[in-house]
């Protein structure tokens, strides 16, 4: 289990994450939503050990998370320029050299499922195809945790739908957990188990998506808006 306990993160004395405590259960897809600047990307980096908390603890199965935890957590960054001088095939070879858990074959199967060409340099691919390639490289790793920063941002609805299907097809939710940030709440909601709403670096609300629908007779987007109106 991945746990945040009283985690704060400050950058140049500015608080970005403020006293966040949360346990991410295994075997679920958890969505992190909130306005730009609410701290989503920072929180994901703290979760993966890329940033160390200013105070508090991040624990993976009871042990402190550091950069070495990368062996159990696959991170999909939100940056677009991502080894752009490589072809897809070279990118996968690079991943295979860096991560013991990387399955070159699986990455190729995902790339094929997402219809993306392996022989073109990433810089010559469209944004949608780079998004597909990033997803294939990430899912190529066989790890208990996937942490994805905006995997669907700026992509057209067709690409988004494909990536969502790829995510369902190539993860094993009995043993794997996905934590992803997104602004596409309406489109992504059907694949989420839980949703966390972040505001000013703190958790404003959190619930199971089906419970939200059951109790409020409304979807996660409306639920989110209700909190903004209150706030």
């Amino acid at each position, binding site marked *: 289990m991945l746990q945040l306990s009283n985690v704060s993160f400050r950058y140049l004395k500015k608080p970005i994450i403020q006293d966040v405590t949360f346990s991410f259960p295994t*075997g*679920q*897809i958890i969505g992190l939503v909130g306005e730009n600047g609410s701290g989503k990307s920072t929180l994901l980096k703290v979760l993966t050990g890329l940033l160390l908390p200013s105070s508090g603890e991040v624990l993976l199965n009871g042990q402190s998370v550091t950069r070495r935890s990368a062996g159990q957590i696959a991170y999909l960054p939100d940056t677009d320029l991502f080894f752009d001088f490589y072809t897809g095939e070279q990118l996968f070879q690079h991943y295979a050299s860096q991560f013991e858990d990387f399955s070159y074959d699986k990455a190729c199967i995902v790339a094929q499922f997402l219809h993306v060409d392996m022989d073109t340099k990433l810089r010559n691919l469209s944004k949608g195809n780079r998004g597909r390639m990033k997803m294939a490289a990430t899912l190529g790793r066989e790890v208990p945790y996937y942490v994805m920063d905006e995997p669907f941002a700026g992509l057209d609805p067709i690409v988004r*739908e494909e990536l*969502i*299907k790829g995510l*369902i*097809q190539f993860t094993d*939710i009995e043993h794997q957990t996905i934590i992803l940030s997104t602004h596409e709440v309406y489109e992504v*909601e*059907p*694949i*989420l*188990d839980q949703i966390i709403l972040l505001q000013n670096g703190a958790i404003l609300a959190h619930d199971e*998506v*089906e419970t939200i*629908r*059951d109790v409020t*007779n*409304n*979807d996660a*987007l*409306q639920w989110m808006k209700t909190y903004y109106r209150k706030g």
Partner: protein
Amino acid sequence: MTLDFSRDKPIYSQLVDRICGDILKGKLLLGDRLPSVREYAVETGVNVNTVQRVYKELEAMDLTETKRGQGTFITTNEERIVELREDMKNLLAQNFLTSIEALGFSREEMLVVLHKKS
């Protein structure tokens, strides 16, 4: 293709309704095999855990049977399907009555409209 879901109900219950509809329309027949949980999740664009809940619900409703190692099948009990038909008809009629009452229409005047429509 991915499904569009209405905003006001849990996704699992919309999928249960959809499969019930497929049974009533004869798109799914007695004894038909349902896709695996993952296949159905990918087809509909829904979380695997949600589809698992759908399949559990259908089984609890005695509409499906799970055969170990073989998958999930629509029941072969024809009576259960007849019952489902009746239940659905009653549910539709009840919803209709509630709606017309809310708007103050009488059953008699609505019956006239229903006959004209057909």
